[in-house]
């Protein structure tokens, strides 16, 4: 990514803005009055530009998923502000958050666990559409089949249960469910982890195609800097609940200013050549 492109991306309006975001978990040890405190988020400040792919990287336990939970409106921060489409949403109650939920969707890492094992593929995709009153009857069925086709799943599989799909197919199903409500923001919480390189590349290509088609904004959460080094427009690095570095991909990868970023760069586990080859295979 050239400097010119980085500058162009930096000018994009922010879909999400966070300021001073903090979240603390207090736990008590069994058979003890002693409490221990986990500062999952500490004064987090981050901007997520619209229609871009922002990657949030950091080692396990650095607070990435807590931040994702706050952005997905599943958790409330203890302090700080979250601005979404120009509206401060961190203090809104559930009733006021409900109209926003369809705009923010999440794809989880564990696709087998994130899909209701008792539902068929069609029921999984149709459920949010039905609940939000978007469609019913045959129209709902048609919409479901269209979504399956869009993510590369055959509509003939609509009545299969989730356990009858492979890991990659389940992730496609999760993506179909996530885009069903036409969200503007998609959180990919380690969604590419646990997949083999070829499937990872195919899912990634699908996500990039969907982004182009629907002008989606992505937040890709990963501990794999080698992956985000290929695809992210912006990168934010988390360490012990804080954002220690953020900026356009080229700056963060090319000139890492923080020890944590350098350590993550050193731990790149997959060669760029192998990944690019898999992506090329995935597109064909």
């Amino acid at each position, binding site marked *: 990514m050239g400097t010119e492109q980085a500058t162009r991306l930096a000018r994009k309006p922010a879909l999400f803005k966070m300021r001073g975001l903090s979240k603390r978990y207090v736990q008590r040890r069994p058979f003890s009055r002693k409490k221990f405190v986990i500062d999952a988020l500490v004064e987090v400040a981050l901007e997520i530009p619209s229609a871009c792919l922002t990657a949030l990287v950091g080692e396990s336990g650095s607070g990435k998923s807590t931040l994702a939970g706050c952005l997905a409106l599943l958790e409330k921060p203890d302090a700080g502000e979250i601005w979404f489409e120009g509206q401060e949403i961190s203090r809104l109650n559930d009733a006021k958050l409900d109209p926003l939920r369809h705009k923010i969707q*999440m794809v989880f890492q564990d696709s087998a666990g994130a899909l209701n094992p*008792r539902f068929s593929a069609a029921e999984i995709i149709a459920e949010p559409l039905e609940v939000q009153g978007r469609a019913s009857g045959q129209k709902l069925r048609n919409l479901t089949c269209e979504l399956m086709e869009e993510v590369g799943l055959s509509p003939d599989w609509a009545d299969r249960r989730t356990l009858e799909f492979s890991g990659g197919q389940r992730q496609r199903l999760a993506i179909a469910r996530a885009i069903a409500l036409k969200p503007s923001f998609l959180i990919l919480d380690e969604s590419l982890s646990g997949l083999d390189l070829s499937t990872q590349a195919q899912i990634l290509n699908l996500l990039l195609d969907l982004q182009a088609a629907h002008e989606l904004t992505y937040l890709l959460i990963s501990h794999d800097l080698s992956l985000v080094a290929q695809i992210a427009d912006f990168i934010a690095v988390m360490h012990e609940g804080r954002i220690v570095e953020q900026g356009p991909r080229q700056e963060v990868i090319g000139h890492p200013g923080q020890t944590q970023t350098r350590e993550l760069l050193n731990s790149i586990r997959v060669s760029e050549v192998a990944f690019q080859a898999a992506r090329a295979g995935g597109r064909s």
Partner: protein
Amino acid sequence: MRYLERRFVHGVLLLISVSIFCFLLSELAPGSFFDEMRLNPQISPETVAALRVQYGLDRPLPARYAYWVKSVVHGEWGYSFAYNSPVRGLLLQRARNTLALTGVAMALAWLLAIPIGVWTASLPGKPVDRLSMAGTSFLLAVPEIVLLLGFLYFVVRTHILPVGGMVSVDFDDLGLGAKILDVVRHLIVPATVLVFASLPILVRHVRASMIEILGSPFIEAARGHGISPARILFRYALPAAANPLISLFGLSVAGLLSGSLLVEVMTGWPGLGPLLLEASMSRDLYVVVGVVMASTSFMVLGNLLADVMLVVADPRVRTD
């Protein structure tokens, strides 16, 4: 289907094993129904010996077992020495009374346990959950007999309900509505004790299963899609938490004939409990075997019912 057939065959084999085991244990137990007659000087030893021959007690164990099997095939299920009648008639009447009591108690316990368990699981650590946990801990800690004595004391002191038996003395003179009301009034004390005895276990199982499922990623995903908490609880979490609860329901059915022995004896409910106690005390062999076999049949049926319900409820079992 093959799975259910296999389970059915297992059940039949279990029933045969239990019947053999019953006869072996009865052989090990000292004395017989006619031994006490020997102490009576008015009954001659020859009469006692003739009675033993008449009822086949002089024959070896395999012959007695063969006689019992033949009797089961003929629908008599053995012969009661004390009542001088086939066991079947005795068992059916008493089992009906027991089922009336335990069926009502089990239905009430589940109808209470599911909403309480689901409600408290949705509010873990909140006052209502703590109150429920404290209540269930208390009920678990109090023995069934203490609970029963407490209820009996309360009812005897206040005279608000009849104590003892299943019907009032003037039952035959009552109209149909009054008869039903009379049985219901007699049922309240033993049924309430049975409900309180099983409720804490059921509530805790429902709560634990629901809490585990409510922490699943697919529940988190459903919340993210804006699906309402009530729909998540009842359409997502409860069906997913159903498998262990269905197995537990099978156990509840299994205990329908055997779970109320103490309560029946203490409240004078004319069910299988008092019959088994009397038969054991007087060594009325075939009645004891009949009651044990009836209880075992219910256990087998309960487990079979749970298996069928699992097949219906869980598509993954059908897929297997």
